[in-house]
């Protein structure tokens, strides 16, 4: 669809100018973050502020790694993200296949109960969860960071909606050939659902990588810190050393930005799909 069939060169130029000015405003904080991260401390405090560093200090990044245990934060965040994402993809897709394709008693009732979970904000669950995790002796371990995050009503719902759109013919043919339900799920439904699975994976990766409140409550030791906790306590200690803080913030968020730039199409399609079908 194109609303500007008759807009001439002037119209297109206006659109470009508007979009470019907007894009500059959107990207400006990142440019400022990058520029600051290479400045010396004194340089960052100059009045008026300078757009570019007077002399470049890539060693700020090294200092971040020396000051805080960035390697541990990276490793923890990566493990949590991978664990939650893999778990959700497997468990949600299995349940979604069952809800979409198999017949069993109370199916609709159970499904509606799962949908009810979607409506409860996570803050409601937070306080009792803390107590449950303490009873399990899971506080401050990888268990608390990963296991509750692998069960997702949203993921089950998203995949179930997608499976419902797939034609049933293949499944019927496979049944006649004597395929087990697991084989039908594994060999027919999963390969046909790559787009939906990637979309769920992206949502889970984003949510896990950027998560703050859950790890803030459930972990306390230095060894269990994830990136968001690590850099916020870093800010607490070095509240005015902005070159160092900006280098740390950039390092924490860069992997997701790189992932986005490479998988952009899937990010956008995933969000658009969720928006329409949600």
């Amino acid at each position: 669809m194109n609303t500007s069939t008759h807009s001439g060169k002037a119209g297109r130029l206006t659109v470009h100018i508007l979009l470019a000015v907007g894009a500059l405003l959107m990207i400006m904080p990142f440019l400022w973050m990058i520029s600051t991260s290479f400045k010396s401390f004194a340089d960052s405090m100059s009045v008026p502020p300078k757009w570019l560093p007077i002399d470049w200090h890539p060693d700020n990044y090294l200092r971040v790694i020396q000051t805080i245990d960035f390697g541990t934060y990276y490793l923890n965040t990566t493990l949590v993200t991978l664990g939650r994402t893999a778990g959700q993809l497997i468990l949600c897709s299995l349940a979604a296949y069952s809800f979409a394709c198999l017949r069993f008693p109370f199916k609709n009732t159970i499904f509606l109960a799962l949908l009810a979970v979607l409506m409860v904000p996570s803050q409601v669950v937070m306080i009792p969860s803390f107590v449950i995790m303490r009873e399990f002796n899971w506080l401050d371990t990888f268990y608390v960071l990963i296991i509750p995050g692998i069960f997702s009503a949203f993921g089950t719902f998203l995949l179930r909606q997608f499976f419902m759109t797939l034609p049933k013919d293949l499944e019927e043919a496979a049944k006649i050939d004597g395929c087990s339900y697991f084989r039908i799920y594994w060999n027919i439904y999963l390969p046909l659902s790559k787009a939906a699975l990637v979309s769920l994976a992206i949502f889970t990766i984003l949510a896990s990588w950027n998560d703050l409140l859950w790890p803030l409550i459930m972990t306390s030791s230095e060894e269990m810190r994830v990136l968001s906790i690590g850099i916020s306590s870093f800010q607490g200690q070095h509240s005015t050393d902005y070159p160092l803080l900006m280098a740390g913030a950039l390092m924490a968020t860069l992997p997701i930005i790189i992932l986005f730039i490479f998988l952009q199409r899937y990010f956008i399609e995933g969000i658009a799909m969720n928006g329409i079908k949600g």
Partner: protein
Amino acid sequence: MSSYITVNADPPKAKTKRKVGKLAVQEAVWGFIFILPVVLGLGLFYMAPSAASLFLSFTSWDGLSSPQFIGFDNFANLMKDAKFTGSMLNTMLYTIGTVPLSVSIATLLAVLLNQKIKGMVFYRTFYFIPVITMPIAVGMVWKWLYNSEFGLINHVLGVMNLPQPNWLFDERFALLSIVLVSVWSTIGYNAVILLSGLQGISGSYYEAASLDGAGKMYKFFRITLPLLTPSLFFVLVMSFINSFQVFDLIFIMMDQQTTMLESTRTVVYSIWEDGFKYFNMGYASAQAFILFIVILIITMVQMYIQKRWVHYQ
């Protein structure tokens, strides 16, 4: 949207003759096995805690000794607690500031991105990067941008001879500062959903309107906007829900001791403070439940009034 959520999912019966009894039992058994992990996990980690939270909100509890049942005392005290009513007010002001601004800019952006121009993907990348950036990193860089002495924003305002507020340390500007950051970081998400809504509008409407000699403004207000309402409705519902749960930006941008917290503390921040700093777990649970009810009511009101303004094709 709602038409999509059909609950009856039974596949049409197979045409082949099948021994109904044994096969049906087998199918049901496998059906249960496949949903079992998710049902158990959600039950243990979401449903049971939700129920426990409702119970806890009627108790006084420090998280260690056994909870004391105190009836509606928590709720009565919350109504008198200036900290809580203030945080509810701040949350509402934050939402009223963020949602209309973000959604209207996103609508304009989606319309611009929908023009067939070169470099659309390029622009889209820039608008979307704030959405995926870690909120903690976002908060840190904006705190720096807002810095009253060395910050870029006040420098630019100074060059333009405009007033230079002490953003995060002035009670008149602190909440506004957070709102602007939220708008900045949600525009891209809303625009992507609205853009896909625009792309779903059939070109034939515009062709018919052109034949009737309709102008651009007419097309926008009489075709584009009405047909975009389902996407706008979804974006609004989600934005309201998310806005009421804001926490990260306040956590990172406000010092925990600052008096500015009075004008920026949100409900979730207050829940976190009462629950995990002061260990008033019953009191915090009651706040979480009030938040849930407020979100529920706002969502239901939106569902109810959508009939008046949402046009489904």
